[in-house]
C-alpha cells in the first residue's frame, strides 16, 4: 500500500453528519472490479443530488482532503467506499468520529482518518467555507493538521496504525511472524473446546 507521510491538498468541507458508505459508494457499483475506476463512483448519487457534497464545484478541483461531521463512514463494511475515496484522489478524511469498520479499512488502504474534537472540526469547516479551495497540510509523523492560516492542530492516532500508514506495511506478513503462537493456540483450543470446529 502507498505510504502516507505528509499531504498538502485542497480540502472540501462536508457539513453532513452520519455520511454512510452507501452514500460514498452506492451499492450498485459494488460488483465492479477495482480496475473499473472506483473514483468515478465516489459520492456518485450525492454529488449530483445535493450541494452538501460540493466535489464538482470549481474551487475543489483536485481536492485531497475531506473535513466532515460526526460518524463519517458509518454503515456497511464495504471497503469499496475507501477505494472510491482513494481512487478519487482523497488521501485524508478529518471528522469528529468515524465508523469503526470504515476507519480500519481506510488504514489498510493508505487513507488517513484524523479524529478532531467536534468544535475543532466545525471551525475548520467554517474556515474552508469562508475560503473555498483553501488547502490544509497534514503531517502524519508530526501528527498535525495545519489550517489555511498556518496554525497547527495536533491529533492523536494509534501508534501501530501510524506505523503501518507511514511505512505502507502489509498486515498478513506481520501476522505470519506469529505462526507458532497461532499453531500452539489452535492445538490447545481443539482440546479444550472441540466444538469450535463444526461437526
Amino acid at each position, binding site marked *: 500500500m502507498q505510504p502516507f507521510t505528509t499531504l498538502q491538498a485542497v480540502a472540501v468541507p462536508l*457539513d*453532513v*453528519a*452520519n455520511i*454512510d458508505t*452507501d*452514500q460514498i459508494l*452506492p*451499492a*450498485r457499483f*459494488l*460488483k465492479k472490479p*477495482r480496475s473499473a475506476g472506483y473514483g468515478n463512483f465516489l459520492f456518485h*448519487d*450525492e454529488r449530483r*443530488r*445535493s450541494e*452538501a457534497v460540493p466535489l464538482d464545484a470549481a474551487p475543489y478541483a483536485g481536492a485531497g482532503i475531506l473535513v466532515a*461531521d*460526526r*460518524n463519517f463512514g*458509518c*454503515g*456497511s*463494511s*464495504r*471497503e*469499496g467506499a*475507501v477505494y472510491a475515496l482513494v481512487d478519487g484522489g482523497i488521501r485524508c478524511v478529518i471528522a469528529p*468520529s*468515524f*465508523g*469503526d*469498520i470504515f476507519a*480500519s*479499512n481506510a488504514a*489498510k*488502504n493508505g487513507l488517513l482518518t484524523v479524529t478532531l474534537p467536534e468544535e475543532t472540526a*466545525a471551525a475548520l469547516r467554517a474556515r474552508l467555507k469562508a475560503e473555498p479551495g483553501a488547502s490544509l497540510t497534514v503531517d502524519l509523523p508530526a501528527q498535525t493538521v495545519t489550517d489555511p492560516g498556518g496554525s497547527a492542530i495536533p491529533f492523536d492516532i*494509534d*501508534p*501501530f496504525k501510524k506505523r503501518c500508514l507511514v511505512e505502507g506495511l502489509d*498486515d*498478513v506478513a506481520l*501476522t*505470519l511472524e*506469529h505462526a507458532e*503462537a*497461532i499453531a500452539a*493456540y*489452535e492445538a490447545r*483450543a481443539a482440546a479444550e*473446546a*472441540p*466444538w*469450535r*470446529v*463444526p*461437526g
Partner: protein
Amino acid sequence: MPPQPRTLLDKVWDAHVMATRPDGQALLAIDRHLLHEGSFHAFGMLDHADRKIRRPELTFAVADHYVPSRDRAGPIPDPEIANMVSMLAANAGRHGIRHFGLDDRAQGIVHVLAPEQGLTLPGLTVVCGDSHTSTHGAFGALGFGIGATEVAHVLATQALWQRRPKTLRVGIDGVLGPHVTAKDVILAIIAALGAGGAVGHVLEYAGSAIRGLSMEGRLTICNMSIEAGARAGMIAPDDTTFAFLEGRPYAPKGALFERAVAAWRRLPSDEGARFDREVTLDAGAIAPTVTWGTSPETALPVTAAVPDPGAESDPTKAGQMRAMLDYMGLTPGTPLEAIAIDRVFIGSCTNSRIEDLRAAAGVLRGQKAAVPGLVVPGSGPVRRQAEAEGLDQVFRAAGLEWGEPGCSMCVGINGDLVPAGERCASTTNRNFPGRQGPNARTHLMSPAMAAAAAVTGRLTDIRRLGGR
C-alpha cells in the same frame, strides 16, 4: 484474592487472544469466517499474494446479496449479477470451502443461515465482510463485520489484530407493551444512543425484557448494533439459546453438546463485572416505533409527529434535519400516522425469520394490502416452514409477492429496487439515502407495523389496528 469479575465480552475475548503487541493490539483467533458474493476483492488479494486459506473447515460461503428473489428456474439474466454469484461458487470450490449456493436447500441470508445451521455458537468469534455480522452476538458470540483487506487476512491466517473494545451495557427491564417487538426495542435504543453513540464499544443487551425474548428477537436486536456505531452486540447465552441450538446440523451433538453447554453456562457476565458505560431503558415505555429520516437514529414512537428543525438550536443540526426532511419529502409537524406509503418490504437479516413472518401474517390474514409489496423469507428453511403454516398464502391473498430467500430489497443489488421518489415501509435496518434505490425513501419498522402499513396504505400504529 478472588478473581476479577469479568463481562461476557471479556470472557470471549480472553479465550481468543493468541498474542499481544506492545501497543496493546491482540491477535484474535477467528472461529467462523462467513463469506458472501462481495468477497471477490479478498479472494483477489489472496490469489495476488499467492496465499492459501488456512482453515477452510472454519470458512463458509453463502450466496445471498445478489441472488434473485423471483424465478430461479433459469439463468440469472443480468450478466454482472450472474457473475457475482458464480464467482463465489468458483472461489469456494477452488479453495475447498462449504458453499451454500442457489441450489442448496439451506441457502439464505448469511446472518439467518449461520444461526439456523448451528454454525453460530456461544463463545465463538464470528467474522464476515458484512457489518451486520453483529447479529451473531445473540448467542453470546463475538460477531463483527470486517472489510475486504481483513477478509483476506482472516482467509490467510484465521486471525485478526484487534484492540479490545470498550463495553456498554444496555439494560432493559420490565415488560414490553402489546405489539411492541424486538425491532421497536432496538430502534428505541439507537434513538437513545445516536447513530455513532456506541462507536468503539461492544454492546451487551441485558435485563428481563431481553431475557424474555426468543432467539429470533435477540437476533433482531443484535443485528442493528452497528446502527448505533457498535461493531458488535452480545446477549448472554441461556436455556433459550441452548434449546435453539440443540439438534442443529453443525451444532455439537450428544455428549459433546452437553460439555459445550456446561462451558457456555460460564459465559454470562459475572456479578459485579465493570462496564465502561451503562444505559437503561424502561421496556414498558417503548412504543411501536418508526423512523422519519435518513439515519436509524431518527426513530420515534409512531404516535409522534415529524420534528421541526426550527425548534433545533444548533444550526448545523437544524440544517442536517432539513436535508433529511427534503430527501424524505416530509413537512414538519405532520403526524407520522398521516404519512402515506407506496410499498412495503418485509425481509432482510433483521426481520425475515419465521417469527417475523408469523407476526406480519397475523396482521394481514383476511386483509387486502392497499399498496404493492414483497415478502422475502431469510432462508430456505424459513420459506418452507412458512409455506407449511400457510403464511405464503396469507401474503399472496393480501396481494403481496412471496420471494425466494436473499437480501433482496434491503440493499437492492439483485435488482429489487424501490423506485425513485417512492416511500417504502420496510423491516430492514438502514434508511440511508439511496439505500433501497436511488432517491428511494425508507421508513424502518417491525414486521407487524409494516403489515399494518400495507393494510392502511400509511404508517399505522399497530395497536390501533389490532390483529393477532
